[in-house]
């Protein structure tokens, strides 16, 4: 009850209330960072994207017309900035390092829910690495949609707003991305019957 809504915070920030904007930043910076991180696959670049997202949003607070949720608005900026970052690169990153933070994060999740079993962790590490490779091999379109829906937990409707496409397109992309990931895992020997 005591916490202001996003819209209220945006309204306050519009009037020059920096604290309100700071609250928005605190509320969403983790998610924006995670989104950027999974798209650009670099912690440093994800930080840049996160900061840039909020800076641009602050500069364009008067553009926010309130028709959509503020976080949708922020997500769209973050996606655009992340894609810009990827496209400005000269080389494509294909290899997933062994200590990829995504893998570590996934293993952390696994451990927190099922305890530490070294053999199992080693196996899960391989699967996680294969999964990250599969995600990285996806096109920007599929990866972005997959990150929004399957990793960030965004609904199809919200993702469709962020990407400005029909919900059906989002659903199709997610389905396609998952299919490709399954294929990739199968090729890597992590198919259903091998586990």
């Amino acid at each position, binding site marked *: 009850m005591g916490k202001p809504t996003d819209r209220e915070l945006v309204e306050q920030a519009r009037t020059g209330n920096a604290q309100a904007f700071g609250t928005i930043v605190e509320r969403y910076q983790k998610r924006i960072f995670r989104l950027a991180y999974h798209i650009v696959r670099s912690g440093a670049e994800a930080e840049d994207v996160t900061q840039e997202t909020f800076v641009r949003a602050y500069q*364009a607070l008067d553009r926010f017309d309130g028709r959509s949720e503020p976080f949708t608005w922020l997500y769209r*900026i973050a996606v655009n900035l992340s*894609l810009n970052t990827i496209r400005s690169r000269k080389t494509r990153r294909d290899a997933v390092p062994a200590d990829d933070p995504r893998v570590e994060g996934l293993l952390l999740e696994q451990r927190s829910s099922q305890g530490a079993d070294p053999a199992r962790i080693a196996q899960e590490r391989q699967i996680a690495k294969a999964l*990250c490779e599969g995600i990285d091999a996806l096109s920007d379109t599929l990866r972005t949609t997959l990150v929004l829906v399957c*990793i960030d937990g965004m609904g199809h409707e919200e993702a469709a707003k962020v990407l400005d496409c029909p919900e059906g397109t989002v659903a199709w992309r997610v389905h396609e991305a998952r299919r490709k990931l399954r294929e990739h895992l199968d090729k890597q020997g992590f198919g259903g019957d091998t586990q």
Partner: protein
Amino acid sequence: MSLSPENKNDPSTKVDTLLASLGAVPAREDHAWEASAEAIVKAAQSAPRASEETLAALFAAPTLSPEPGEATRTNEAPTRPTASAGEKSMSQDSNSGSSAKPESAPMSGLTSGPMSAATSKRPSLKELAARASQAGAATKQSVPPGALSAPVVGKPLSEAPPAPAEKPARTSTPSVAPTAPSPVAAKGSDSGKSKEDSGIVDLNAINKAATAKQIADAEKAKPATHDLGDEGEGEKNAVAASDNKVKSLAEAREKKKGGGATWGIVVAVVGIAAAAAIMLKGKPPAPSPTANVGQDKPAVEAPAQPEAPKLAEAPKPTSTALSLDSLPSEPADAPKSAVGGDPGKLAAAPQATGTTPEPAPAATPANGAAPVPTPGKVGDLNSAMAQAVGGAGDKGSDGTEEAVPAAGGKSGGNQNIPEQPSQGSVASAIGAVMGGAKACVAGADDVSRAQVTFSSSGAVSNVSVTGWAAAHGKSGCVQAALKGAKTGPFSKPSFTVGTTIRP
């Protein structure tokens, strides 16, 4: 999000589970986030304002190239106008032309395929029309009201030497005439309204000015029109043909006419003979109406087969005349024996009358006998059909229990229980309790994740909570909320699904 043993073999579930596990925010200390937030706010306040174009580009929809499959789907939209354009022209062709649109001709010109063929027709039509109008008195343009279709196709034919044997051809063509001429007629009136110089307008004018003699001549030419249309692609071929082609076609038509009439007569005679043969053969087993029913299929597939009487013998063992209740019980075998020509088994079926009803699979050849008619309501087709498909109607005196697994085979009646719950049912089940779970994490600054395990009964057997809720002691609240989820039963021992709880 862990891979529970029962889900490990499901690649789809595994991918989902792993993806959800990836949602963890890269590890950082809280103070690092706070410092980062402060830095961001300061940067936002001090940063030079970006240009409007830059901001507009950032707020615009992300430019993501469509995927291959997605591209084909999105391409459907552009193709629709083309198709609709095509449809319009087609409808204009098929309609009487009274509602023809002025731009019908341009549209047809834009479209490819058939329309390009239409464009290629025009010169020849024009030539034909000009020739017809020049020929004037010598030729026969008339368009009888009933055969308005004649003008376009009839014209070239009229130029050909008048067919000597119109009358027989005329008698044989009526059945074909309605198909070919109608588009032609529509086209003619269409084009006339659109004032295209396709030549059809001239024809109409000529038709109006036609003399009685010309009309009579055109009458002679009419059968030729039908024949030409009959040869397929009616207007296309006929109109696109040059004068020489038209003449050759007319000659060919003349040759064909005699043959067509002969063939028509031959076919009619053969048909009548076949019908008579069927009638004659069908009469002997006629004593009971059921026999006729059983005989229908063999009669159609092999009219002169001797199996028909044997099939009719099948019901004999029954004490009374064949009744409808004997039919539904053997829907699977009856057609087989009728087609496969093994009436012996079919004949044996009724001999078992009086035994207990058996489920459908029991009627397999392994048993050596066809299924026995159930002692249901005699003549009740609905109940008989229900029994035939193994439905509730099988509730016989002693076959009640067996009839149910019969449809499910070895599954032991689990036919309707899916191996695992559908995504929709799981989503709705979790969605129903998500409100309560969200209430637990209200005010959270990060998402929480829960792994919900459903038992085979559909009830939640376990909930594992991670993320913000777990870190802030809200696991119990979330678990309590999510344990209320309920989905339909399924055959797997359990099914685990991950969900993200956003504040």
